[in-house]
């Protein structure tokens, strides 16, 4: 009996049927994602209140930063698409294609992280650091937390890809890691407008 069949039908009389019809690994990832969403939510609510309540807020992002952010966003959304391809190819048993999609996703994640660090270095070069006021504190904390998730995701994808390639992990593991990667993309959809787009220099 496959893992997904076991999740749907249960193990005979020994175990109850899963109410959600998904493997426990996937459900655990969903619970992690929800808890992480609440963590990001608390940071973003705090930022939102501070941002709206503070007069003369710093707006440091000029044309160069805006172009950088546009590229970063397109890269991250594209990486979600390649992740979908990896999961689908893995489920269909096409290991070669799944690996190519996984490596594409990792490469896009790495490009995102490099562009992010370039943005940081430009800001630090202009004198904005984590200790230089409310903007620096909130910006580096929120984007740093997101960047940490991206880097962790790339490492997780690398480990899963290597073990999946060696036959030690199943397509189900690729799917669960994919869920995490899509979540990282989803969080960026909130970080981007709140932290970047409200701080563009006019």
């Amino acid at each position, binding site marked *: 009996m496959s893992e997904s069949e076991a999740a749907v039908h249960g193990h005979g009389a020994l175990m109850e049927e899963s109410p959600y019809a998904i493997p426990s690994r996937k459900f655990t990832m969903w619970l992690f994602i929800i808890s992480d969403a609440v963590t990001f939510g608390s940071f973003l609510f705090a930022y939102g209140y501070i941002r709206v309540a503070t007069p003369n807020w710093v707006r440091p992002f000029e044309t160069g930063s805006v172009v950088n952010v546009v590229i970063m966003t397109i890269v991250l959304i594209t990486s979600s698409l390649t992740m979908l391809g990896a999961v689908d190819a893995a489920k269909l048993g096409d290991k070669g294609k799944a690996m190519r999609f996984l490596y594409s996703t990792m490469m896009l994640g790495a490009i995102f992280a490099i562009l992010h660090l370039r943005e940081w270095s430009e800001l630090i070069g202009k004198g904005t650091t984590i200790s230089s006021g409310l903007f620096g504190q909130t910006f580096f904390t929120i984007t740093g937390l997101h960047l940490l998730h991206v880097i962790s995701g790339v490492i997780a994808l690398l480990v899963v890809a290597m073990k999946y390639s060696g036959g030690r992990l199943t397509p189900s593991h690729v799917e669960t890691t994919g869920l995490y990667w899509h979540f990282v993309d989803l969080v960026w959809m909130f970080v*981007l*407008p709140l932290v970047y787009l409200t701080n563009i220099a006019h």
Partner: protein
Amino acid sequence: MSAASASGNVIRKYLPVYFVLIGIFLVELLLSFRIASTSKLVIVLLLLAVCSAALGLMYFMHLGQERRGLFLTLIPVTIFVLLMMNMWWSDSVRLLHMRPMGQ
């Protein structure tokens, strides 16, 4: 249908969602130059971000294809917690000054 061509289909299947997400981002970018009021901009951008997140959840994370019980277990509770967070944060500002709201 071979496995290779079938896995190419999933990209084509989700390409419209991908372009809608890019489109929403470009609208957000345009609005950030057009709307001068910060509070109004934050609200509009948040609404668009919720639309993007809903698309990501339903299509990329396949929540729309799972049993409805999973959606009902995870999403309403998360929204409730986040909304309560919204209440606590504003209340913490009130408590900071130890006075009722509006004073």
